């Protein structure tokens, strides 16, 4: 038997954006699944009402695929899932990011999810299982939000951050652990005439240092995929690669154009998996 075809959706509600993934899977419960991604969409929240953004993002993604809600077998939420009232089930962020990471880069041994307010590293085992993980603690100077703020002070658009950073010649490290104080550090640097490139690179390096600590703590293995919004930041990726090389570690750092969708993809995939399990159970029961 070829196995059934199934549509599922993952909605990842983050602190800065909502992401939706629509996937078609073919396969059997417990067996291998063939996956076809039908649609991916991200919408920034930007101080809008969360639920409205969720509906917008989900609705638009479905429209783009030409689908109706009734076509879908399972809607899974991740992130701030409580807000997704139309969900069927919820999976926690690291569970979904691991699954999504494996989907994007099948050989990755770990994922590093860097979003607006958090960074978390997880080692991925067989069946996309989260083996161990670490998250940054309270202090948030190593997050996307912080980078965004600094970029704003420096008068740099977000997409420029990466390219500028990679051009740096003598990066200036940020010392403070606190994002607020780090901002002051940055202001100090500006007034000392340090170039924007060097400042950004410095921030990237200190973030990278912190992330590597997480990765080391989970014994990340050979191939790490960056997921979450900051995967799009080439400067951070480069800094991570440099730092990893400095420590002569064997770790390779990867990104993927769809990295930001890892969470929603993972949720959709787990949703499909779960649906099949539940169906099987029901069948067994009747």
């Amino acid at each position, binding site marked *: 038997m070829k196995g059934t075809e199934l549509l599922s959706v993952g909605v990842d509600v983050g602190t800065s954006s909502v992401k939706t993934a629509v996937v078609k899977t073919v396969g059997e419960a*417990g067996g291998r699944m063939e996956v076809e991604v039908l649609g991916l969409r991200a919408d920034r929240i930007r101080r809008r009402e969360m639920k409205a953004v969720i509906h917008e993002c989900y609705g638009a993604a479905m429209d783009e695929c030409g689908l109706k809600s009734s076509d879908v077998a399972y809607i899974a939420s991740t992130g701030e899932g409580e807000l997704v009232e139309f969900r069927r089930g919820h*999976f*926690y*962020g*690291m*569970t979904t990011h691991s699954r999504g990471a494996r989907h994007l880069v099948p050989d990755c041994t770990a994922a590093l999810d860097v979003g607006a307010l*958090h960074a978390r590293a*997880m080692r991925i085992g067989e*069946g996309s*299982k*989260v*083996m*161990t*993980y670490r*998250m940054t*603690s309270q202090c948030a100077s190593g997050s996307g939000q912080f980078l965004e703020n600094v970029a704003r002070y420096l008068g740099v658009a977000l997409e420029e951050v990466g390219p500028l950073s990679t051009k740096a010649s003598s990066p200036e490290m940020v010392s403070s652990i606190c994002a607020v104080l780090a901002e002051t550090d940055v202001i100090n640097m500006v007034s000392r005439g340090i170039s924007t490139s060097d400042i950004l690179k410095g921030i990237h390096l200190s973030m990278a240092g912190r992330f590597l600590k997480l990765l080391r703590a989970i014994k990340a293995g050979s191939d790490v995929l960056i997921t979450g919004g900051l995967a799009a930041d080439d400067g951070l990726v480069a800094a991570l690669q440099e730092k990893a090389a400095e420590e002569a570690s064997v770790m390779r750092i990867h990104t993927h154009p769809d990295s930001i969708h890892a969470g929603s993809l993972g949720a959709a995939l*787990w949703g499909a998996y779960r649906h099949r*399990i539940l169906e099987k159970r029901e069948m067994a029961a009747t």
Partner: protein
Amino acid sequence: MKPALKALVDRVTFLYEDLDLTVVKEWKETHRAKAVGYMPIYVPREIIHAAGMLPVGVMGGGEGLEIIKGDAYFQSYICHIPRSTVELALSGRLDCLDGMLFPSICDVIRNLSGMWNMMFPDRYVRYIDVPQNYDPEVGGSFWRRELAELRADMARIAGREFSDDDLRNSIRVYNENRTALNDLYLARSREPWVYPIAEMYLVVRAGCVLPPEEHTALIREYLQLAQREDDRKDKDHSRVVIVGSFCEQPPVGLLKTLERAGCWIVGDDLVLGLRWLIGDVDPDGDPLVALSSAFLANSTEAASRYEPGDAKGSQLIASVRDNDAEGVIFCAPSFCDPALLDQPMLVTALDRAGIPHTQFKFSEDTGQFAVIREQAGTFSDSIRLWSEV
């Protein structure tokens, strides 16, 4: 929830939230007797009890207390419990305690004993220095002497001498209390859905302010009432043991969050002092010798005890196995040196035994559980999703 259980839960909730120690004041009033406070972990409560006084466990201020003066005495890199305790004292809430004992647990509590001396020069303060040498002749004789001094002090505060028989009687009372607590833990471990963590914790925690006899009865009653709730059903949860919160206590909201994120807590070291001694203390011999030997030979392997071997790891693994747990959550207060320094050693032991674990830190007034929920949820996901296949 049936009315009888609801009443019981309301009562323990009140005891927990009542930072003014109303029940202690009432007890003192009705018994025309005194009360002696103690900081977390082990103090020989039997001696206080034998003197006809009420031992009162002071476990910090929890999430409900606004800290104003307490913060003035502690830097930001010191854990939370001493500041809330100082706040309680400075706001007069501990005035009903006629003495305060500071057990040997860490440098913070140790120094707090001296601070107490200076801040409240008229009150009785004692630092309880337990031996870290377990030879009955060496550490034992030191400890017996400390106990004898404590006994004399308690008699003095109570204003009455008490006999060895009084003390033996108190030992029996506390033996019964420990048995009841053990029964509760066993029942919870068997059917965690019957005893939600928030209820269970508050029932245990009530032992800090209730006389032991009353607490024992309360536990027994709870065990019966909880079983009669027929809407409590097993859920697709994972089973975990939490460690690290033997001193500063996590907010109840955190415990609830863990449960909501899919973790049954089937073992813990919360309010550890109530369960410090393992097994019964000999109720028949020389009582101070009995207490001393129990301490030397039958103490739980806590972070505040010197333990050069791997007994701490073995104890944790045994607790995982005995309770059929699938993982361990390290749940320590921020800046708690004893708990946090123990952690890597315990992790090594768990890794060796192939037991999964995760960790986070809290403070007693943590109000945001989003990160913790995420972590615990993933932990529980990872135990569940993959064990199904």
